[in-house]
C-alpha cells in the first residue's frame, strides 16, 4: 500500500501531491532558516549572562533566555544546524560507503559478493543504539563518535538495497550488450546501473534522515552526542529538564523543532516513494 493512497477505490497518487510539495517547501524552508541563522546571529549562542537568565519573550530575546541567560532562538536555530547538519553528514558518508559497496557486490557476484555480504551481515548484527553506546564507551562521548556509530550501522542498508537492485538490473539484456560492446565494469556501473538505484536510495535516505535526527537528538539528550555548550536540540532538551516545572517552554521549543523536522522528512520520504513508484509504472 502506498503512503498517500491508503484505501481501495481512491484515485492513484498524482505525480505531484500537495503534501509532497508542502513537505519539500517546508524542508527547504527549514534548511534556509538554519543556514540564514549562521550568517545573521544577533546573539552569541554560548555567551552566558546570568543577569538575564530565564527571561520571558521580549524584542531583545524573541523566545526568551535559558537558565544561563543565553538567547533561546539563537540556540534553537544553531541547534537545527547541528542536528540536521550532522544527520546529513552521517547519511552522506553512509551513502558514499554503501552505494559503491552494493554496486560492486551486485555486479561482480560470486566470491566478491559473498565476502562483501558477509561483512555487511556482520555490521547488521548490531542494533544502532548498542553500537552508539559501545563506541561512546570506547572513544568517549562526542558528536563525531556518534556520527561514526550511525554510519557504521546505516551504510549496510544502502549496500543491501543497491545490491538487490543491481542484481536484478544486471541480468537484463542492455547490460549484456554493454558488456559485448566492451564497456568496462566501472563504466557499466556508472552509466547503466547507477541511474537505476538513485530513486530507491533517495526514498530510503529521506526516510532515514528522520530516524537519524531522532537518534542524534536522543543520544545528545542522554549526554552521548553533542557536548555542552554546543547548542543541539537533544542537548537543549536535557539542559532545560530541571526547569520544566517553572519554564516548560524551554523544553517545548526544541522538542517541537525535532518533531516538526522529523515529520517533514517522513512526509518527504513518503512523497518521494510515491513519486518514484508512479514513474516506474509509466515506464513499464
Amino acid at each position, binding site marked *: 500500500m502506498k503512503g498517500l493512497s491508503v484505501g481501495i477505490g481512491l484515485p492513484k497518487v498524482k505525480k505531484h501531491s500537495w503534501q509532497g510539495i508542502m513537505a519539500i517547501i517546508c524542508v527547504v524552508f527549514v534548511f534556509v532558516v538554519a543556514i540564514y541563522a549562521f550568517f545573521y546571529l544577533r546573539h552569541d549562542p554560548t555567551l552566558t549572562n546570568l543577569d538575564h537568565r530565564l527571561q520571558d519573550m521580549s524584542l531583545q530575546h524573541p523566545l526568551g533566555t535559558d537558565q544561563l541567560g543565553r538567547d533561546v532562538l539563537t540556540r534553537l536555530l544553531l541547534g537545527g544546524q547541528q542536528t540536521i547538519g550532522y544527520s546529513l553528514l552521517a547519511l552522506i558518508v553512509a551513502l558514499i560507503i554503501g552505494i559503491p559497496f552494493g554496486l560492486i557486490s551486485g555486479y561482480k557476484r560470486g566470491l566478491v559478493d559473498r565476502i562483501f555480504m558477509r561483512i555487511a551481515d556482520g555490521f547488521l548484527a548490531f542494533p544502532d543504539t548498542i553500537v552508539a553506546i559501545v563506541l561512546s564507551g570506547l572513544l568517549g562521548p562526542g558528536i563525531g563518535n556518534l556520527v561514526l556509530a550511525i554510519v557504521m550501522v546505516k551504510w549496510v542498508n544502502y549496500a543491501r538495497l543497491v545490491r538487490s537492485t543491481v542484481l536484478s538490473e544486471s541480468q537484463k539484456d542492455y547490460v549484456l550488450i554493454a558488456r559485448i560492446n566492451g*564497456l568496462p565494469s566501472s563504466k557499466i556501473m556508472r552509466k547503466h546501473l547507477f541511474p537505476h538505484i538513485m530513486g530507491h536510495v533517495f526514498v530510503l535516505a529521506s526516510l532515514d534522515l528522520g530516524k537519524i535526527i531522532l537518534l542524534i537528538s536522543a543520544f545528545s539528550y542522554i549526554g552521548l552526542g553533542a557536548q555542552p555548550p554546543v547548542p543541539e536540540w537533544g542537548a537543549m532538551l536535557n539542559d532545560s529538564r530541571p526547569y520544566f516545572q517553572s519554564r516548560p517552554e524551554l523544553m517545548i521549543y526544541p522538542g517541537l523543532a525535532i518533531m516538526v523536522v522529523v515529520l517533514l522528512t517522513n512526509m518527504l520520504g513518503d512523497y518521494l516513494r510515491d513519486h518514484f513508484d508512479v514513474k516506474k509504472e509509466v515506464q513499464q
Partner: protein
Amino acid sequence: MSLLTVERLKKSYQEVKTAVNNLSFELNKGECLGLVGESGCGKSTLARCLLRIEPIDSGSIYFNDEAIEKLSERQLHPYRKKIQIVFQNPSAALNPKLKIKDSLIDPYGQYRKELNLNYFSYTSKDAFVKQLLEAVELPADLADRYPHELSGGQRQRVTIARAISIEPELIVLDEPTASLDVISQGAVLTLLTELRETLNLSYLFISHDLAAVSQMSQRIIVMKEGKLVDQFNRNHLFSEERHPYTKELISIF
C-alpha cells in the same frame, strides 16, 4: 569465403541438459544465414556462445579463420567490434533510464579509436546519432526521448541502429521480430535487408518463423534439440530431399 565457422560446438547446462550438441556450420561473407528451430532448441544459447557471453564446453569458433573460442576478454576486444547482436526484446535491450542517444553512442564511444567508418562519419555526438537514426528510418528528434516513449518497432530500430553504428562484419539477429506486430515485422525485415546491402553486413538470422527466415536468408539451417538436422539453399526449401523435421516446419506455415 567463410566469415564464421563453427565446428562441433557443444554446450550444456548443469551437465544434464545439452543445449547445443555437436553443431557445425559455416557462414559466408555477405550472406544472411537463417537458423530455424522451435523454442528451446538451443538457438539463443548458440547465439550467446558465438558472442562469447556464455562459455562453451567444447568445439571451435573461427572468425575470419581465427579461433576465438578460447580468447580472454582482453584478447577478444578486436573481435567484439566486428560482431554485434540484436536481441528479441528491445525493451530489455535499452536502458530505460538513458536517453536514446546515450544508448546509441555506447559501442562507438568504446571503439572510437580503432574504427574506420565508411558509411557513417563522426563529427559530433548529435550529428552521429542523427545519422544512425536516419539509417534506420527514424526521426532524428527521438534522440532525446526515453525508451518508454517509443513504440516496440521504433525501439527495435534503435537497437539495430546501435548494432550497425560501428559497422560490424557480422550481426547476430536473435529473433529480432518476435516481439513486434506483423506490420512492424515486415518493415524491420525489409530494413535489415537494405542495411545488409548498404553496409556490406553478414547476418546470422535466428528465428522460429520459417517464413521470415526464408524471406531474409540465402541459406537456411535447421536445428532440433541442439543438433543440426538440415542445411540447404533457400531455393531448395520445398525440395523432396528435405529432412522430415523441415517438412514438418513447412507444413505449419
